C-alpha cells in the first residue's frame, strides 16, 4: 500500500513539475500515448554519450521479496528468529492484484510456498534470477557504458550484463538469463530470455518455467528515483502476460558501496552439515 501510494504521490509531483517545465520552449510536448499513466514527466541528466544517466546504486523499498502479491504480516518461518524473522505485510506489486497462473502451476506455487525453507533458492544462496534480483532487500549498482550496462547485485554477487550493441539470442540457459537492451526515450528497456526453470520470484514460491520472458523498463522519475516495471510472459506457467511495477531509490550516502555478500560460505553447514565426519562411535 505504502509503495503504491508513494508512486502516485511522486508521479503527481513529477507531473506538476513537468507541466511547469512545459512552459520552457525546448521542453518535450505531450507524453507518448503508449506510456502508462504513472509515467513521470522527468528528463534525466545525460551521460557523456547522450543517454539517460542511470549510473548509481539503487534499491527497492518494499516487501516484494517476501511475496510479490498482496499479503498480511505473518510470523517468522523460523521460530527461533522471533520478530526479527517475521514477515512484514505488503500491498503487492502485481498490477491487477494477482498472478494469472494456469491451474497446475497454481498448485505447484502453493506447494513451493508450503515448503519454502527447503525449496526457495535464496535459502541456498543461489543466483536470484530476474526480476527478483532487482527487488531483493540488497542494493545493486548500475554501471553504464555505451555497449554494455552492468547490473551488479550485492546479493550473492549476482551479475547481469545488458548488451546494448551486439544483441544475440541467449546462447544457453542460465539463472540470470540473457539480456539485450535498448533506449526508448527516457527508458532503458531490457529484454531477457534464456532462463533456466530454477529461480523464483519471491519467498512465497511464485515461480516460472524455462519459457520465461521478462521485459523491463527502467525510467528515471526524479534525480534519485527510478520507475521499474517488468512484464512477465511464460505460457507454460501463466494464462497471460502480467506486470509488476515499483519505484527504485538511489542510495544517496556519499560513501555508499556494494558490499561483498558472498553467501556461499553462510549456507555450507545448512547444505552439507549432515555430511560432516562424525566422531567415531565406541
Amino acid at each position, binding site marked *: 500500500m505504502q509503495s503504491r501510494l508513494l508512486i502516485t504521490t511522486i508521479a503527481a509531483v513529477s507531473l506538476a513539475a513537468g507541466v511547469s517545465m512545459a512552459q520552457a520552449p525546448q521542453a518535450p510536448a505531450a507524453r507518448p500515448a503508449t506510456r502508462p499513466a504513472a509515467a513521470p514527466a522527468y528528463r534525466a541528466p545525460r551521460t557523456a554519450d547522450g543517454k539517460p544517466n542511470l549510473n548509481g546504486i539503487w534499491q527497492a523499498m518494499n516487501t516484494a521479496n517476501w511475496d510479490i502479491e498482496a499479503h498480511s504480516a505473518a510470523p517468522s518461518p523460523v521460530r527461533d528468529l522471533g520478530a526479527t524473522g517475521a514477515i512484514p505485510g505488503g500491498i503487492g506489486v502485481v498490477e491487477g492484484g494477482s498472478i494469472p497462473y494456469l491451474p497446475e502451476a497454481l498448485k505447484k506455487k502453493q506447494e513451493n510456498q508450503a515448503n519454502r525453507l527447503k525449496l526457495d533458492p535464496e535459502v541456498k544462496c543461489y543466483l536470484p534470477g530476474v526480476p527478483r534480483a532487482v527487488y531483493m532487500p540488497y542494493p545493486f549498482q548500475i554501471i553504464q557504458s555505451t555497449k554494455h550496462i552492468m547490473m551488479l547485485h550485492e546479493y550473492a554477487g549476482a551479475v547481469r550484463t545488458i548488451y546494448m550493441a551486439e544483441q544475440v539470442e541467449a546462447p544457453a540457459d542460465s539463472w540470470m538469463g540473457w539480456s539485450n537492451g535498448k533506449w526508448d526515450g527516457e527508458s532503458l528497456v531490457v529484454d531477457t530470455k534464456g532462463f533456466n526453470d530454477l529461480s523464483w520470484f519471491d519467498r512465497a514460491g511464485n515461480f516460472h518455467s524455462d519459457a520465461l520472458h521478462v521485459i523491463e523498463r527502467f525510467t528515471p522519475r526524479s534525480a534519485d528515483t527510478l520507475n521499474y516495471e517488468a512484464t512477465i510472459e511464460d505460457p507454460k506457467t501463466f494464462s497471460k502476460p502480467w506486470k509488476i511495477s515499483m519505484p527504485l531509490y538511489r542510495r544517496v550516502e556519499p560513501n555508499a558501496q556494494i558490499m561483498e555478500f558472498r553467501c*556461499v560460505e553462510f549456507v555450507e553447514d545448512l547444505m552439507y552439515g549432515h*555430511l560432516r565426519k562424525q566422531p567415531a562411535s565406541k
Partner: protein
Amino acid sequence: MRHRTLVYACAVSIVIAIAMAATSSVAGQSAPLEKPRAVAKTVTVAKAYAPPKTPDGQPDLQGFWTNSTYVPLERPQGVTKEYYTPEEAEVAIKRAADREAEQTEPGTTADVHYDFSQFGLDRSQSTFAKTLRTSLIYDPPDGKIPQMTQEGQKRVAERAALRKAAGGQYDDVKNMPIGSRCIMMGGAGPPLQNAGYNANYQIVQGAGYVMILTEMIHDARIIPIDGRPAPPSGVRQWTGVSRGRWEGNTLVVETTNFNGKNPFRNGSENMKVTERFTRVADDAIEYKFTVDDPSTWSKAWSAELPLVKTDGPIFEFACHESNHGIANILAGAREDDKKAAAQRKPSSN
C-alpha cells in the same frame, strides 16, 4: 554440464598469435635487465600508442581480456636471465603446453576428472598472452618472491596447525579448498592471476567507476575512482576494498582490507596490493601489480602479467548452484568411514 560445454565451445575465439612473432629488430635488442618489458609486440608500439578514450574522456580499458599464459609467477630453477630469446620462449611454451597435454593421458586421475582435450582446458587451444619474460615477477630481479619474515613463517605454521586440527580435507566442507567450494577462484584476485582455464575478464567503465568482471564465479570488482576516502578498517572482504585513480593513462588501483581467509601466497590480511593497468595497444593492456605486506615479506615485490584481447561475451559461471561435487565427495568419504568402522569392529572382538 550443458552450460559448461557451451562456455568452452563459445570460447572458441580467435587464437590470437599475440606478438610473439617479435620482429627481429626487437629480438635483436639487448634487453636492459633493469626495466620490465611488456609483450614483445607492445614494446615496439607502447611509446607511440595513444589509447582510445571513453565518451567522458577516460582512457578506455573496456572489452574482453584474458591473462592466460604459460609464464610462471616465479623464475624456474636453472633459468638465470630475465628474458628469453623468442626461440627460447617458444621452447618454454611448448614444454609447458606438452606438460598440460599429458593430463589427457587415458586412465590418469586428471583425465578422469577433466578431459583436457576438450576445448578451453588446454591453454594452447585458446588465446593466451605471450611474453619473453622468464617469470612474471620482475622485482626482485631474481624473479622470486622475497624471503618470508619470521612473523610470516610463524603465521604459516599456525595456519597449518589449524588445518591439521580441523581434520582431513574431506571431514567437513570447511576443510575443502575455497575454489572447490565455489566461494572464489584464483583469477579474481586482487591481484589478478592467471587461473588456468576460463582466465577471462570483462572491463566496463561508467561514471566514477571501473568494473572488472572475472568469468570464474561471476566475480565483479567495483572500483570507485571518485577520490573517496579509504574504507574503515572494520570492513574486511575476500577481495578486499579497492580504490582507483588515473595517473596519466594508467589506472592505479590500491586494495586493502582483506579478510585473511584466502591469503594470497600466504600473505596477511594487512596486505596492500597496488595494480597498474595501461592500455598499450588495441589488443593489449599492460598489467603490473605490487604486493606490500611487511609482516610477511622483507620487501614489496612486483610482477607483470599481460592482458590480451579476447572475444566476448562472458557467460554466467553458476558454480555453487551446480556444485554436486561437494555433496558427492563428502558422501563418498562418509561411506568410506562406515566401511572402515565395519572393518574395525570384527577385529576388535
